């Protein structure tokens, strides 16, 4: 009984720390403001908070417990696309936070062609990822 209570407390506090850290991380990177700015949906910001919370909770449940649904595999295409967009935005936000592109473009003296520089990173990510999943994992 005592052990159970102790485990509940430990689990709960662990989740509390991870959850708040997760939200803080997302806030620092500024993905949600970016998305609301793009789509002009500032007044729905509360809804986005709930989306992140529910996503994290359901992701935790699906990841830690072995529950599963029986759905057609085609459903995985939009899921894959959405998770890719999310990770891509994370990567872009990190590049931005680290100030890589402004310094790089300043060093080599290109200001207008920063789009080309950006597309190099984007295409590199896409092809690297495709190569990784289709060939590299077989090694």
């Amino acid at each position, binding site marked *: 009984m005592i052990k159970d209570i102790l485990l509940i407390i430990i689990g709960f506090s662990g989740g509390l720390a991870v959850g708040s850290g997760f939200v803080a991380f997302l806030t620092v990177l500024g993905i949600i403001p970016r998305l609301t700015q793009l789509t002009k949906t500032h007044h729905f910001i509360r809804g986005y908070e709930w989306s992140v919370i529910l996503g994290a909770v359901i992701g935790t449940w699906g990841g830690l417990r072995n529950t599963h649904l029986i759905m057609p595999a085609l459903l995985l295409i939009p899921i894959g696309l959405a998770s890719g967009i*999310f*990770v891509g935005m994370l990567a872009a936000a990190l590049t931005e936070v680290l100030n890589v592109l402004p310094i790089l473009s300043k060093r080599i003296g290109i200001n207008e062609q920063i789009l080309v520089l950006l597309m190099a990173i984007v295409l590199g990510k896409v092809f690297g990822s495709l190569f990784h999943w289709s060939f590299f994992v077989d090694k």
Partner: protein
Amino acid sequence: MSSIVLYIRLRQKFQAKMNEIISIEKLAHLIGPKDMTTGLKQKPIYKVKPEDNAFIVIDVMDIIAAIYKEYPDVDIQTVGPSQTIIEVQPKKRKINTLFFVIVWILLFIGAGLTIMNFHEDVAMRSVHQKIYYLITGTHNDKPLILQIPYSFGLGLGMILFFNHIFKKKFNEEPSPLEVEMFNYQQDLDQYVIVHEKKKSELKRHDD
């Protein structure tokens, strides 16, 4: 000599409709002799035109010039910001709910994926296998149906974040990259100002 003082404080930012005539009253807070301010408050400064961008910047000098034209001998004191931003409201708000649903699903799946990655010690491969199992109920070591859209989404997400391709279509707000470039340039300029000042001061003391 007259010693009438007029205080102006610009607003930081406000919204205006298309074809609206912006008077001083909307732009700024005025304090001064009552007979003077009531007339000045109605004075038009700017008219929002359809060819304007989504943002219009009005400098305090424009307002001072307008006041100076009528009362050349008044002492104008500005307090607070020296520019104000007018955000022009678009004519109609549409398909917002659709965007909301898309972004909601995106954040939902993204948050789920990232927390699963955290729990798996950042092993995207086993997370993908797990998601495949979660949805279909069967195991697949190479869930390419999930991973190929994921790869393309990766690029799309970066492009969306920097808002380069849809820039003309969506809005005229600056992309984070442009803001970052601007900040970096300002930091450099600030450094040059402080640094050069120090150098010239040293020189002067040496003489």
